[in-house]
């Protein structure tokens, strides 16, 4: 994970106002929300929800996290997994992943289980 990829994980366009205001915790489990058409472009994701008319852009960081949101892992376990894969980024990894996960939740493309 690139160290210079900061907390700007998501840029979301939503026709409907997003209602999520819950702060995510390390014990939360995140699951991809169903109904998104997924396109992978050069390591980034573009998600489109037909019914909600919402398109979401995920950079490489957010794309990786989104793909790991299977509803089984807690956020703490997700951070641990990524820390193993990217040891060079361990300093800021927890904060970056938490921020990106919060953004995914706020954007409405993942949900808490």
């Amino acid at each position, binding site marked *: 994970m690139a160290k210079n990829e900061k907390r700007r994980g998501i*840029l979301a*366009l939503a026709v409907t106002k997003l209602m999520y205001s819950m702060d995510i915790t390390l014990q939360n489990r995140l699951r991809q929300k169903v109904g998104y*058409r997924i*396109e992978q*472009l*050069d390591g*980034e*994701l*573009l998600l*489109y929800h*037909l019914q909600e*008319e919402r*398109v*979401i*852009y*995920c*950079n490489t960081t957010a794309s990786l996290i989104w793909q790991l949101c299977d509803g089984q892992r807690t956020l703490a376990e997700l951070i641990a997994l990524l820390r193993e894969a990217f040891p060079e980024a361990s300093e800021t990894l927890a904060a970056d992943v938490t921020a990106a996960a919060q953004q995914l939740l706020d954007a409405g493309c993942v949900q808490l289980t």
Partner: protein
Amino acid sequence: MNTVVVNFAGSTIAIEYSGERAAHIIAWLFRAIPHNSQQPPQQTYRLTAEDDMAAISLHHDDTRCYHSQSPGDIAEYLMGEICCRLAERSQGGLLLHAAGVAWQGCGIILPGATGSGKSTLSAYLLTQGWIYLTDELVFIPWNADGCQAFPRPLQLKTPAREMFGPFWGTSHQAQPCLHACASDLISPARVQTPDFSYTTPIHCIIFPGYASDHPLQIQRLSQAQCGLMLMQCLANARNLPEHGFPEIVRLARSIPAYRLIYGMFTQAQEAFERILSEILPLPESKELRE
């Protein structure tokens, strides 16, 4: 009652008109657009003179939607209506809110919402010798790499009308300009416009943004970033399978895209030259710089 039928991007709109003043407005607005009366219109407007002959009324579905004594105001309002209505029923491809310009067959589209500065930037580029395609609507048929442009009159809003209006002057015999309350309309006949039926190849997508005194900023966009921004400019999404998303992705994968922030128009010219030098083979880009 005479009728002109505007067919573009899978939509067909008829405008019925009577009287000399209405006929003049219709001829001025739609001279660059072929009139195809073979397809039945999906919507109809009617342009007629008021009883006192001083004002002209515009009706849509038997409801008067606008009237004015000013031909410029009528023309501006009617063209705005036409652009909106074209989007309502458009299908068969992507209809983008975008300006379009070309340089020696190299097409660049400039997507952006209304008020983002597309027309003003287009006007500046025309003064530098670029070809005018459109300042509002670009249609990309399915699986095409080229676009069809809606050659509406170039619309100069304040302050663009003060900056660029004198460039076109008033000496042209075909009356280059109609003055409306909020803008000046420059006839497509007055600017260089290719044959309407010509599909211009798209070599580049540039999302322009003007910010006063801002240093020039050129950002090469990723494919996903381009796709996101194109979806924001898609005018006929709800008429398309999957709201046009797969086709937007196809476009984003195949055409280089940039975000441009500029504080002066000379910066924009510099940016266009730099971008073209990146994407075009050397002889074409060298010719541009010369």
